[in-house]
């Protein structure tokens, strides 16, 4: 050991505490890694003798199911119909949830007036409403869209109300001293600052919209993914049932991607995003 080391101790560069920036291509590979592992596991399980052959299709069999559904069962237009129902129902439900959340988050009176009722309604399982909605609204598009709306208002309501309540009081106070009040204060300061949490509510609402769609489309549908699903169930076509479930999962991924894009656009100002 040299004299120098004894005097100053051994010196080294400080350990990097933050995560190193990664290449975009690596990040993409990381994202698809787990799905690929699952795919391999699924294939080997489907091909093994551990389970009866007709209960789980291989990915290739799912492919040919998809092709069959595409050719003979108007798969694309059925998916389109389902997406449209989900979007309209979500717009209605999340829109109402957002407005009620604003009311409840911004004013004490609003919260006292709304909160108990909404919390009660939230506990009602939307699937239980299906027969009633048929009774009240018939078998057309209305009950399907309303079920989606009913399932999606609550996450948006609770997220908006708490987001608005948690906006930095000091900034709101400052904005008030500079003359902002009423609708302008809400639109220019409170809602933009509450957006991160509101978007979390929206992404939850989107998940619920797909769930509610399954229930809603059981109502004597003539089209939609739920209709295909109900048919394949009725005729005991297991592979088709499995394929439909995968399609629902894909809709979930589409929804998540959408929120992700929205987040990047709406939250450009956030520190992590802004300095990147």
């Amino acid at each position, binding site marked *: 050991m040299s004299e120098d080391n004894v005097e100053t101790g051994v010196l080294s560069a400080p350990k990097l505490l933050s995560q190193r920036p990664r290449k975009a291509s690596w990040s993409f590979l990381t994202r698809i890694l787990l799905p690929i592992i699952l795919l391999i596991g699924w294939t080997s399980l489907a091909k093994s003798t551990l389970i009866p052959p007709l209960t789980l299709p291989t990915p290739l069999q799912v492919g040919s199911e998809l092709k069959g559904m595409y050719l003979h069962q108007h798969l694309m237009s059925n998916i389109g119909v389902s997406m449209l129902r989900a979007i309209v129902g979500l717009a209605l439900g999340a829109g109402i949830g957002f407005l009620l959340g604003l009311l409840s988050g911004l004013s004490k009176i609003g919260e006292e007036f709304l909160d108990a009722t909404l919390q009660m309604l939230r506990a009602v399982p939307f699937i239980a409403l299906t027969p009633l909605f048929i009774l009240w609204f018939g078998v057309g598009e209305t009950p399907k869209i309303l079920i989606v709306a009913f399932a999606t208002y609550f996450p948006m309501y609770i997220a908006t109300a708490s987001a608005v309540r948690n906006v930095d009081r*000091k*900034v709101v*106070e*400052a*904005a*008030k*001293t*500079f*003359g*902002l009040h009423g609708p*302008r204060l809400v639109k*220019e*300061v409170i809602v*933009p*600052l509450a*957006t991160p949490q509101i978007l979390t509510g929206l992404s939850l609402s989107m998940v619920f919209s797909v769930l509610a769609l399954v229930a809603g489309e059981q109502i004597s549908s003539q089209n939609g993914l739920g209709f295909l699903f109900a048919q394949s169930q009725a005729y005991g076509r297991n592979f088709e049932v499995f394929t439909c479930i995968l399609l629902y999962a894909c809709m979930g991924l589409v929804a998540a991607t959408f929120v992700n894009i929205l987040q990047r656009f709406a939250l*450009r*100002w*956030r*520190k992590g995003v*802004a*300095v990147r």
Partner: protein
Amino acid sequence: MVIVRGVRQSFDDRVVLGDLDLTIHQGEFVALVGASGSGKTTLMRLLSGLQAPDAGEILVPEKRTTVFQEPRLVQSSRVWQNVVIGLQKSPATKDLALKALDEVGLGEQAHAWPATLSGGEAQRVAIARALVRRPQLLLLDEPLGALDALTRLNMQALLSTLCAKYQPATLLVTHDVDEALLLADRVLVLINGIIAHEVIVDSPRPRNVSKGLDTQRLNILSLLGVTTTKTSE
């Protein structure tokens, strides 16, 4: 101009301001120093209308603005939008913001997000935001308290220049006796909710605290309960 007469404020049983009188003339720069808990912030909140006094009268001009201890910028709006927040929107508004930012030396950051600014830069945006409205009363609530010593010196000079230029009635609340003596025409010492002492500072600007203001400095510090031993060299 500001007139405060017989203002009292207490929270629960604790008297924060007891019978406070204060007059600030247009163009006058008044500094208020006091230990923490002496009622400085309460007075500020009363003057900016963030709370109402228990008793007494407060008369303030219509156009008044505040620079807080923290910048308090709206993170989701760009820097220039923060400067003109709450103003009527018109095509001229942006020019107004850009000019105000130029004055505080931040013209190039006009389109940045607040989260990317340093503490001193953000506080300069807050100063631009307060002055762009040409206030008749400017409230400075420990505006430089959170800044590092070097930035603070620059900002003191900036504040001094801008206040001299626009001549608002200014009330600066600070712990920093040197800062008060450097900037103010009058320094008030607030003790237990009343103004216990007044120091007129009439030395010419720009000032240097180590020259000529030493006696006043020691005087105020001793009123605030700081014991200073003068070392003779």
